[in-house]
């Protein structure tokens, strides 16, 4: 159980690292949010699962925390992205199409 927990923690840390790398490498705020949201969600969930293996008494609480993250993380990302788009944040030159701007203005 200790080994499984340790592996889960390392896996979670790896995904958090990828998320951090994404924040640095991605070209604009929207792509950065993408990297930030996804990698941190799974990274954190794996971390919580790892802790649950090491401390089985905490499992229920950790599960509830994971549930909170799953519900709140995408909402905060969505609101950040919408605010960025409405305030005219710079978009990467790679951006192929912007239906939102076509319909609602920048």
């Amino acid at each position: 159980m200790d080994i499984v927990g340790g592996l889960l923690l390392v896996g979670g840390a790896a995904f958090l690292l990828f998320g951090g790398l994404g924040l640095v490498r991605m070209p604009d705020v929207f792509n950065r949010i993408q990297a930030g949201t996804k990698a941190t969600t799974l990274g954190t969930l794996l971390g919580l699962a790892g802790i649950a293996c090491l401390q089985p008494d905490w499992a229920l609480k950790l599960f509830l925390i994971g549930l909170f993250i799953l519900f709140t993380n995408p909402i905060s990302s969505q609101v950040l992205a919408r605010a960025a788009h409405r305030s005219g944040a710079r978009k990467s030159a790679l951006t192929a199409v912007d239906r939102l701007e076509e319909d609602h203005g920048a």
Partner: protein
Amino acid sequence: MSKARNFTLLFATLTLFWVLLNGSLALDVLVVGLVAATLIAFLFRDGLAVVSELRTSPRALITTVRYVFFFIRELVKANLNVARIVLSPALPLNPGFVKVRTRLKSRMGRLLLANSITLTPGTLTVDLDGEWLYIHWVTVDTADVEAATAAIVGGFEEYLEVMYG
């Protein structure tokens, strides 16, 4: 949905969460939790609760369980996808904002759809406007509304339609 039923459901959910998080039924802990739950449930009695719009037929419950597994699979795929893009030296991106349409009618169904899209491969819900969702897509395969809808919304909608309508 009556206000009384909304209040009761929200109050019960909050109280349950409070007790589970504290892991204690001591009087002082319980009183604080009950007061807080009453206040929040009163303030948000018009709001939507995750449970209040969920259908409770056996088919909907089975679909909910299948949806959770489908969602976890998509979540893992999303993360491997991000890892692949971030780690590749060329940074293969073709980002853009596409527009998709949902058949879902209920508020909760649409909320879960938007959240699920955000947590799955390369897509991020930026704005909602009635039945239209605006999605930031890291690798735009198609800007066509119908094709993008099938690619992004299709999988989740089947489940959520049974769960929430």
